[in-house]
Every structure is written in C-alpha cells, then in structure tokens.
C-alpha cells in the first residue's frame, strides 16, 4: 500500500508503520491530552482493575502477610464451604425476599404518586407536596435508620400504633421476624417515593397536550384519558425504569441493613452483602468473603446484562 502524506505531517495508508508514526505525532502534538488520559486510566487501573485481580483471593486461603502471590491456592474450596455452610439458605432467601419485596412495593409507588400529583391543577399545592415529599430523601441513611429503630422499639410510636391495632403489647418490631423485611421496605418507600417520582413527573409533562384534546373530542372522560393517553405516554419511561431496576434487584445493599439488623434478627435480615462485610472485615476471612462477594457479583452482572439486552431489544438503546 502506498502511503500518502496528509496536511500536518500525518500519513494515510502506511500500514502499521504509518499508524505508529501518526500516533507518535499525535502524542507529541497533544502531550497534555495524553497525560490527562493516562491519569484517568491510572486511576481506573488502581481502584477498579487491581481489585478485580484481587478476586483471585476467592480461590485461596488468603493471608495478608503472604499476599496474593504467596498465599495457598485452594481451588473451589471457599465456594464449597459457603454452599455447604449453615447460612447459605437464609442468605439467599433473605436477599431474594428483600430484593423482590422492595421491587414490588417501591417500583410502582412513585408512579402512582406522580399520577396522583399530575391530576392536581393548583400549582402551589402541587409544588408544596412535591417539595415536602422529596425531603426524606435528604435525610442520611444513618439518621433515617436511627428514626426507624426509635419508632419501632418497644414503646416507639409505630410499635404503639401496631399494638393498638392488634390490641396487644408494644414490642420491638425490628426483632419480630415477621416485620423486619416490611419495615426495611417501608423505610425505603418513605425515603424514595417523592424523589423517585421526579422522573415520572418529567415524563408526564412531556405527554402531548393535543392528545388530551383529541381524546376529549372523542368524548373520553378523565379516567379514559388517563388510561389511553397518560399511561401510554409515560410507558417508555416506566419500562426503562423497570428494566434498570431488574438489573439490580438482587444487589440488596449492605449499608441500610447493617444499620438496622442485629444478631436477634439475622435470621430474616442477613443478606449476602452484610455477610460479606462480617466475614471479611470483622472476622478477616478474606478468602471466603471474597468468594461470596464474587458469587453475588456474578449474579448481579448476569442480571444487569440480561436486563440491558431486553432494554436494547425493546427500545433500541441500552446502557452499554
């Protein structure tokens, strides 16, 4: 192939030699740009790719003194230990239960809230309710969980209310095995319903007003308009949010549960991520905890990839 000189010293069609020439020239011309790029890549290498290498610990009896290269390899032993251990059942059960319950309650709630809000014509009332409903989102997880603990302990406001309805004693609801998961989900509802509705309100304001006029012409009442104009109008947003949410349904985060649970309710509250935390950080069994974390990561990645695939098929655009 004959190479061809371009303006500025670059060559075209010079094969590998031409390519290296161009790259070298580009790097010399844009030193700052490539310096920046290497900084960014260095960050991702250190903080993201090295820990990926650290996943090898899952197949080791890792000892911090010996490091990854010096520790003893044990094959699938850590996985076997986990899957034959006493906690695997409750961990998977709790993770799936909490994930699914959270999805079932906290996915539709912001949509319903947005629809209820959308029916209000009075601007100030709407604005005030919106502002108030976003407020719990700005309360930190620690404070929110502190409030939950305070309200649901024996003698707390919620415990008293439940006792009144059941005509029973005010008990510590968090340690009540039937209530923990629901309390966790309702806590998320309280913090997330207003904030989660923002996206749907944005979608609602984007629905074509002419469609409403047309529906009215055809004699559709408000209910019919909601059913045939409003909901189809925000359906793309709903589907997208649902699929995104499906991708993380089993990645129940450790942060709130670590605050709410205690040994008395591990049976219903302990999820994979909190177990990884306890095993790894508290008990320093790095091999086992890395193995459990890897198992959770793989499930998470599969969920994310398949939800992304579905999203691509339905809308033509995915996240990656």
């Amino acid at each position, binding site marked *: 192939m004959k190479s061809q000189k371009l303006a500025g010293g670059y060559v075209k069609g010079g094969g590998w030699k031409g390519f290296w020439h161009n*790259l070298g020239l*580009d790097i010399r011309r*844009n030193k*700052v*740009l490539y310096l920046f*790029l290497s*900084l*960014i*890549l260095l960050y*991702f290498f250190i*903080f*993201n790719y*090295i*820990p*990926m*290498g*650290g*996943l090898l*610990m899952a197949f080791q009896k890792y000892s*911090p003194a010996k490091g990854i290269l010096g520790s003893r390899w044990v094959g699938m032993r850590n996985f076997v230990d986990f899957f034959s251990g006493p906690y695997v059942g409750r961990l998977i059960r709790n993770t799936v239960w909490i994930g699914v319950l959270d999805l079932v309650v906290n996915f539709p709630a912001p949509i319903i*809230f947005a629809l*209820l809000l959308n*029916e209000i014509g009075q601007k100030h*009332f709407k604005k005030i309710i919106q502002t*108030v409903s*976003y407020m719990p989102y*700005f*309360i930190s*997880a*620690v*404070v929110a*969980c*502190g*409030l939950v*603990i*305070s*309200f649901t302990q024996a003698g707390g*406001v919620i415990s*008293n*209310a439940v006792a009144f309805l059941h005509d029973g004693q005010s008990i510590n609801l968090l340690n009540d095995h039937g209530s923990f998961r629901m309390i966790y989900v309702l806590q998320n509802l309280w913090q997330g319903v*207003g904030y989660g509705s*923002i996206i749907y309100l*944005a979608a609602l304001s984007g629905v074509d007003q002419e469609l409403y*006029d047309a529906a*009215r012409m055809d004699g559709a*009442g408000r209910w019919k308009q909601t059913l045939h104009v409003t909901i189809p109008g925000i359906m793309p947003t709903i589907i*997208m949010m649902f699929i995104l949410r499906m991708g993380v349904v089993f990645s129940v985060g450790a*942060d709130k549960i*670590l605050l709410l649970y205690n040994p008395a309710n591990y049976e219903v509250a302990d999820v994979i*991520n909190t177990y990884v935390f306890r095993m*790894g*950080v508290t008990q320093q069994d*790095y091999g086992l*905890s*890395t193995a459990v*974390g890897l198992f959770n990561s793989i499930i998470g*990645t599969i969920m*994310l*990839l398949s939800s992304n695939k579905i999203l691509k098929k339905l809308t033509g655009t995915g996240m*990656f």
Partner: protein
Amino acid sequence: MKYKLKFSRVLFLTVDVVALLGIGFVCLAPIWHVVMASVSDPTVLGSTRGLVFYPLKRVDTTAYHIILQYKKLWVSYGNTILYIIVHCGLTGVFTTIAGYVLSRKRLYFRNGFMMIISFTMLFNGGMIPTYILIRKLGMIDTPFAIVVPGMLNVFNILIMRTSMEGIPVELEESARMDGAGELTIMWKIILPLCKTTFAVIMLFTAVAKWNDYMSALLYLPTRTDLYPLQMVLRQILITSTADYTNAATMANTISIYKKSVEYAAIVVSTLPILCIYPFIQKYFVTGVTIGAVKS
C-alpha cells in the same frame, strides 16, 4: 375547552387531595416530631405514646446544651465538611478532565478507552478486594481512604462527556487560533458551557459523601478522631456507644435526657440540609432527568 365538573370528578379530586395530604403528612411528621421532641420535657416525652407535635410541658433546651458540649460530634462535623470539599474538588477536576479527553474526537483508541472505563460499571472487585487494596496502599486510618476512592465514576464521566460533545467545534477552533492551550480551552471555553452538568455532578457527589458512613466503617478502624459526622451519629443513634460525660453536666441528667439528646443530634445534623435543599431542588430535578436521558 370548557370542562364540566362531574360528581365523580369532584369525588376523585377530594380523594386525591386527601391522599396527597396524607403522603405529605407522613413525609413531614417524623421530622417535625424529632424537632419538637428534642425540646420537650424528657419525663413527659418518655411516657408519651404518639407523635409529638408541640413542645411537651415546657421548652427544654438541656439536650442541646449536652450535644453542644459533645466535642466528638462537632469535630466530625468539621471532618465531614472537609471531606466533602476535598472529595468534590477531586471529583470536579478529574471528571472534567476525563470528560474532556474522552470527548475529543481525534483521540486515538477513544472507544477502546471508553470501554475499559465503562467495563468497571458492569463488574468490579467488590468490597473485600477493594478493602485489601486500600490497606496495601497504606490508606487505612488516613483521610485519603475517605476522599480518594470513588472520586471518579463512570456515570459522571459519561454525562460530562455527552454534555461536552454537544459543544460546537468552532468555538474550540477559534480559541486554538488565538493560541489557547489545551488547559485554557478546557477551563475557559468548554467547562463554562457545561455548568449545569458540572453543578449536578457536584451536588450528587456532595450528597453521597454527606451520607457516606461505609467508607469510614471500613477504612477508619481505629482513628475515631477522623470519623465523619455519620459515624458519630451512628454511635449516638444506632449502637448507643456515645459517651456524653463532661464536667459541666451530671451523669444522671445525661441518662434522663438520652432520648432528647438523640433527637437534638438529628436536628443539628439534618436541619441545615433540609433548609438549604428547597433552594437547590431544581438541580436535583435536572440531575435526575439528565441521568434518565443518558441511560
């Protein structure tokens, strides 16, 4: 077009307004309860079964005196503010740089680099390998463990890049003609045009750091003097391991006011945020919408 009010519509609107007022009440009532309970008489508070809507018996500010003298809380308050400033600074600078570099169309292997970075969104080492890394880097029990990890995130880079790609090339070219360097173009020409995106990223980063207690729980095992606010609140509210003893207050006063002090701690740590937030609310709305468009 005139719209006739039917009975069913009036009924629906009534139910709707009542439901919304109910939701508003549920969102606000616990916060109000905390404020009022923190200034209530502790013995009356202890025997009250429901929510507190006004100061019980009398306005009692003893809990605030106790919390004001609880040094650890205020030290951690300062730490958190410092962590937020440094972390946001790092995030701002490096996200801008990353967005700028990756939005250059002439960059070699641009898509390859983008994929290397995006892959970390899909799969990562997880809690324990990251913990081991931070330990090997010698960051355990140093403030670096709080501000450095997580300063760059793929999502922020993606929205920054998208916003920078939207800027017409002519602006940049004319600046280059005038002899402007890469840095000048980035800070003076490109960044000012991406102000909203930048503000949104800063805001979400600041809120996330404000709420973050996990990194301190993991990476500050012994240096409690470096604790961020949320860790001290955790000791006060969750683990009940805070010790308020000091020369000025008697031990039994402290035990009587324990609950009120918890509420007072929530008030001093949360109310400032709740008061600022309505003014920056529109950025959150923008942020959520940008995020949705991107994904």
